């Protein structure tokens, strides 16, 4: 007989979506080899470029040119490449790494904080202007972010903010997608009765938020934080416009500068460093996604409930 457990996060207070999953029918579906093989092909497409990156970060500039792209060259230069990446040009790569971390901590951290507070407000309070906020924020998502870039640059330039870290951090603080996700998540995860009870006991709104709501929001917060981190870590267009001084570049901008320097006359061709630097750039994010898998996947699943 079927013992169906319907995963219905609407009922779960904290969407721990590791709940036993639905079984499709009386009896388990049969594992399918053909389907698995097709998926393996898909995985191949996904990982070949990443494997290429790993293999080629072990090559010297000369080795890159005269060896097969998917196999190692004679000499194994990975450690040497990493060392050169960090020492080239007075160690500017390390500086870019620190800049990126700064943008992520303040930009993504701030964006998550604002999204959590705002999402909580939208989910659990009635207040004047709520519908207007919703309409404007959702409408603004459709405005191409790049269409805003030029006017934002001109505004910031008048305020004297361009070529400073603030020009990258301030626009990163707003994540409409994060707000939306947090809103849906808060609506599901926080029972209103619990808030009422806390208020009855005389807790202030601030205390209610921190002690009652915040712990329940944890999976959603991890999800939003991870996605805003990716957005900030990977951001290219905004810093490209806002920053002239290479000392403030994030990794993405630095890498693309290294890559295009081969095109300038007399420019040093350092594709081996571009490749090694690329590898070093993606490792932290991939690690974060793998380690936090359980949290962000449950947060995301809860976010899609309302659609």
């Amino acid at each position, binding site marked *: 007989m079927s013992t*169906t457990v319907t995963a219905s996060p609407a009922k779960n207070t904290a969407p721990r979506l590791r709940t036993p999953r639905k*079984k*499709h*029918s009386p009896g388990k*579906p049969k*594992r*399918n080899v053909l*389907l*698995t093989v097709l998926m393996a092909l*898909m*995985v191949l497409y*996904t*990982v070949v*470029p*990443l494997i290429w*990156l790993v293999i080629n970060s072990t090559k010297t500039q000369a080795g890159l040119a005269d060896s097969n*792209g*998917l196999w190692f060259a004679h000499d194994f230069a990975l450690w040497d490449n990493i060392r050169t990446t960090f020492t080239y040009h007075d160690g500017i790569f390390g500086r870019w790494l620190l800049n990126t971390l700064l943008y992520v901590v303040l930009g993504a*951290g701030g964006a998550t904080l*604002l999204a959590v*507070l*705002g999402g*909580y407000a*939208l989910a*659990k*309070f*009635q*207040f*004047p*202007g709520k519908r207007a*906020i919703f309409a404007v924020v959702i409408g*603004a998502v459709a405005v*191409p972010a790049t*269409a*805003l870039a*030029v*006017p934002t*640059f001109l*505004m910031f330039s008048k305020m004297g903010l361009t070529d400073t870290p603030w020009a990258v951090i301030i626009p990163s603080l*707003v994540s409409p997608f994060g*707000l939306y996700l947090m809103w849906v998540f808060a609506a599901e995860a926080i029972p209103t009765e619990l808030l009422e009870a806390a208020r009855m006991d005389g807790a202030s709104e601030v205390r209610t*938020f921190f002690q009652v709501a915040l712990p329940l929001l944890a999976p959603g*917060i991890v999800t939003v934080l991870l996605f805003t981190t*990716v957005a900030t870590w*990977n951001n*290219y*267009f905004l810093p*490209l416009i806002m920053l002239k001084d290479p000392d403030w570049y994030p990794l993405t*901008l630095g890498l693309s500068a290294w*890559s295009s320097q*081969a095109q300038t006359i007399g420019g040093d061709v350092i594709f081996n460093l571009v*490749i090694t630097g690329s590898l070093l*750039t*993606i490792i932290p994010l*991939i690690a974060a996604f*793998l380690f936090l898998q359980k949290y962000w*996947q449950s947060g*995301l699943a809860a976010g*899609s409930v309302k*659609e």
Partner: protein
Amino acid sequence: MTTLQPPVAAEPRPAPPPAKRDRRSWTGWGFIGPFVAVFALVFLAPIAYSIYLSLFRDQLIGGNQFVGLDNYTRALQDEAFWSAVGRVALFLVIQVPIMLGIALLVALALDSGRLYGKSFFRITIFLPYAVPAVVATLMWGFMYGTKYGLVGDINSAFGVTLPDLLSPSWVLASIGNIVTWEFVGYNMLIFYSALRVVPTSLYEAAEIDGAGQWRIISAIKLPAIRGALVIATIFSIIGSFQLFNEPSILRPLALNSITTDFTPNYYTYSLSFNGQQHNYSATVAIIMGVITMIVAYVVQLRGMRKGA
């Protein structure tokens, strides 16, 4: 994330009303206020400023002059702009269905419970999302190359001459492949998350009625995740119309194929930062924004209405 000290806005907390129903107070603003303030600064103000800019022209003599809708008439007759729009439209029509189609198939396969090693597939296919567009484009750019790349290796190994993927006739498809690689896993995850919350009782009822797997997919699963499909489509449309990172990073490797007016966004960028034509650039950006919103809106209306 615990290190951040939340700037808790001043709480205008009136005496708690005894009546439970009366939650309609300004308390919510204390929480959403900070978001709204920054949002106004980085979204609303630039939009307003952009509209203002589009009505002026910077003259060498006479400075900033009000020209009304002149910039708009110029843009509507600008061939470079329209050919860029045509290019991203072509990209949209081909790349987006391929990407979303693959993402949907993968999501359905994962959801079917018929795979060996499901969670391995799920996380691996998602991984490219964590790779910055800059890195993805550099990687693929090198791989496309005949000198260092895989294409060169294949050519020499098999004695063939594959088409140059960075040539003008292939470069748009090559960019399409990069974008597909970057986002297929992300869209897959959105679809998969939506599939997970479909009540299983529906599948059982359908099976009792004799429905096969394909019937269940077409009659239950797809309608159930229509919202997710529409949202993913809209985001992909916006992404296509905004195409900038991939062509601009690929350009040093493909100077002949990618011009500085390759996409509308690239065009506004070049106008502003190479040509100093800020006013005209703002105009082009606004027109592109309006086109994007119209297309997204139409898709949303159609998507939501279909079979509802």
